[in-house]
């Protein structure tokens, strides 16, 4: 099971690239796709989900070019788009039955799978209510369920935790971890904690290009002995921001506790602390400039 992306590009206008010369090779596991708004994450996701055609480059699923043969991938694909709608007059159950039919599941498998998925996404109680009456978080859970209907080998989820309450977010993270054994999962988000909890590999994207692709441990090693924390007077905050990559602040009654990424100790009082993925992400994106 292998997903190979080579020199992938998407040009929207003459002077605007959504994605440019992007290479990636993925095997089973959860890959977290991190990047600021407009980095090109959704563009990449839509091309992987066969919704959008690339301008250049190739995407191969087990060595089959999906631009030439999209149905090869579609048969084993589960996709949760960032923005999607539902048919308001159908109940949650009917919508999943409809999607199961579209995905080609036989009636028996579909029924069992839908029952299990409704339990997984905690919608058993609402399964027979029209979707028009669902809250945003409930619709998002229906979206998650439809993506898992065909037991996909490639699961692409774009900002899946948007609209979910904290407990549902934890459930979803656990679900992704449970599913990650023998399938490729691509999780796109700008919420670093979601990736931190589930991803076995992380890809950082900015301005349509890949900045880094590594295991979380490797990324954390990059900032070993480079993250500093100290208590500074509030009036110095602006100067600190100018000089260093600021990754966190906590206001206290005796000043402001700042956390920065820096090759050397910024002040004599600064203490070296363990890096987090948030530090790594901010460091990579800041060095590459803001998003598009």
């Amino acid at each position, binding site marked *: 099971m292998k997903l190979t992306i080579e020199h992938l590009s998407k040009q929207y206008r003459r002077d605007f690239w959504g994605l440019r010369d992007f290479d990636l090779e993925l095997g089973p596991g959860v890959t977290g796709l991190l990047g600021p708004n407009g980095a090109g994450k959704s563009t990449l996701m839509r091309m992987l*989900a*066969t*919704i*959008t*055609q690339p301008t250049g480059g190739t995407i191969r699923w087990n060595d089959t070019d999906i631009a030439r043969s999209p*149905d090869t991938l*579609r*048969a*084993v694909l589960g*996709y949760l*788009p960032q*923005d*999607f*709608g*539902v*048919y*308001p*007059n*159908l109940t949650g159950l*009917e919508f999943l*039955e*409809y*999607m199961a*039919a*579209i*995905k*080609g*599941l*036989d009636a028996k*498998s*579909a029924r*069992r*799978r839908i029952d*299990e998925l409704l*339990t*997984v996404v*905690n919608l058993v109680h*609402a399964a027979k*209510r*029209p979707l*028009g*009456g*669902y*809250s*945003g*978080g*409930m*619709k998002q859970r229906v*979206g998650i369920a*439809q993506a898992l209907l*065909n*037991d996909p080998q490639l699961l692409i989820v774009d900002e899946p935790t948007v609209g979910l*309450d904290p*407990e549902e977010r*934890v*459930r979803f993270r*656990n*679900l992704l971890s*449970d*599913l990650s054994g023998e399938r490729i999962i691509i999780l796109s988000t700008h919420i670093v904690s979601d990736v931190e909890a589930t991803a076995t590999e992380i890809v950082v994207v900015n301005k349509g290009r890949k900045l880094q692709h590594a295991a979380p441990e490797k990324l954390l090693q990059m900032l070993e002995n480079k993250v500093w924390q100290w208590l500074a007077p509030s009036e110095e905050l602006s100067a600190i921001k100018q000089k260093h990559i600021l990754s966190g602040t906590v206001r206290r009654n005796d000043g402001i506790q700042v956390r920065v990424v820096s090759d050397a100790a910024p002040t004599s009082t600064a203490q070296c602390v363990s890096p987090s993925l948030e530090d790594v992400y901010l460091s990579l994106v800041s060095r590459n400039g803001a998003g598009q």
Partner: protein
Amino acid sequence: MNALRILYHMARADFLERTRRYSFLVMLGLVLWLGYLSASGQFRMRVPPDYLGVINSAWVGATMTITVTLLLGWVGFYLVKGSVSRDYETGVGQIMATTPLSRPLYTVGKWFSNFAVLGLMILILLGVGIAMNLLAGTAEFDLWALTAPLLFIALPCMAIVAAVAVLFETIAWLRGGLGNILYFFIFIFAMVASAEGMLSPAAADKSYSSFLDFAGWRLIGESVTHAAQMAYPESAGGFAFSITDLANPKMFVWNGIDWTAEVILPRFFFLLAAIGVALLAAVFFDRFNPSRVLPAKNRPTASNHPEPAPAPAVMPVSIPHLTPLTGPSDHFRFAALFVAELKLFLKGQRWWWYAIALGLIAAQLFSELEITRILLVVSWTWPILILGGLGSRETRHDTRQIVFSAPHPLLNQLPAAWLSAFTILALMGSVALVRFILAGDTLGLLGWITGVLFIPSLALASGVLTGSSRAFEVIYILWMYMLTQKVPQFDFIGMTPESTWYIYAPLAGVLLIAAAFARQRQLTNRRVSR
């Protein structure tokens, strides 16, 4: 002053948003074409049977005005309707609702923007008229004679259309397809009222109320008739607007309407009436407050009435086991998909919808064969709002990304959707089919087969191509109306012996191919995604 500024910016933003849409360009093309047909004398006013005005500035201006009020008055409504709905759908309305913007200001602003769009079209039409009049050079160019009817007749008429569009959008049950259909009949009725007494010489003595003549047909018609009768005293009068060729027309000169204050002032009444309708719309406008919308019993229609989420305390955070699927999942299971599509079509209809549908089917059994044909037209018109969703549902509900990323969307979902519409129509006309077979009515049978093939194909093609149900609703209701009027060119179901069903049967195939081609493009085109 602040209100005027708000009004200006609201109308401006709305105007720019709409004029940058593809549909506006299509409409613009249509207006240019209509302008050409009017100015070149292919659309013609005449006094029956064959009295025709010499093409001069006044004649061109009046012909264009009649064209505008007839065609733009009808289609223009569908073109401008949608700006309030867009504010609901995009969520912009909820942002607006948090500002001091008042309800009357909002509806008048929307009216003004609708009016600006339609006014721009009249301006373009005027440009075509001027160009054509100067190029043709058959008579002396008179800018006032050309402009005045457009200014005093077409423009107030468009003001009314713009206001009615706002009114329909602020009344929840008129916002969708039902409003589109209802407007068609209201428009037909209003045009008849406007021209009352003018279309037939026998009725010419009926009293004339300039306050009913919103389309100005009677105002123009009376003046034209008078000129014809001056030139040809034997003329019986009357007024017609047609595209028919006349072999030997009897020509007369018409120099236009004498625009006295008595004539002009009633025209301003329509402008005021339009503002009145826009203000009336404010009464019905809920200011994007979902709590003012009372949902139908047992039928939640929007996400603005969300069900409460379950209490977090009872939710297990651990994940139940998911059984892996064993068999391949990419089989072509057409029957299941067909049933799912059929369910999708019929879900959300109220009990009375089914009751009327059953009543229409039953009525086909007990009526005379000629009446059965009419009942068949009505039965096939009944599911118009359902058929309108064919091909456009994925865009309307934004399910494209999940539906199109399933295997073989072109070969599976599209034919299943078409077949479900076919099935609904076949059921609606089932008794008529049996009657035609038993009576040995070959024409009825051929027309029935053509109907069940052509209607879903037309719905699918217009839905896929436009991404909206509106185009189909507008075309279909006109088409079915023409069928009841037994116009042979529109007759695809064998209403008349001159039925042209043999054109529509292959056309169904062409439409299906067009729909498949367009969907294929959508599947690979970037426009599918946001």
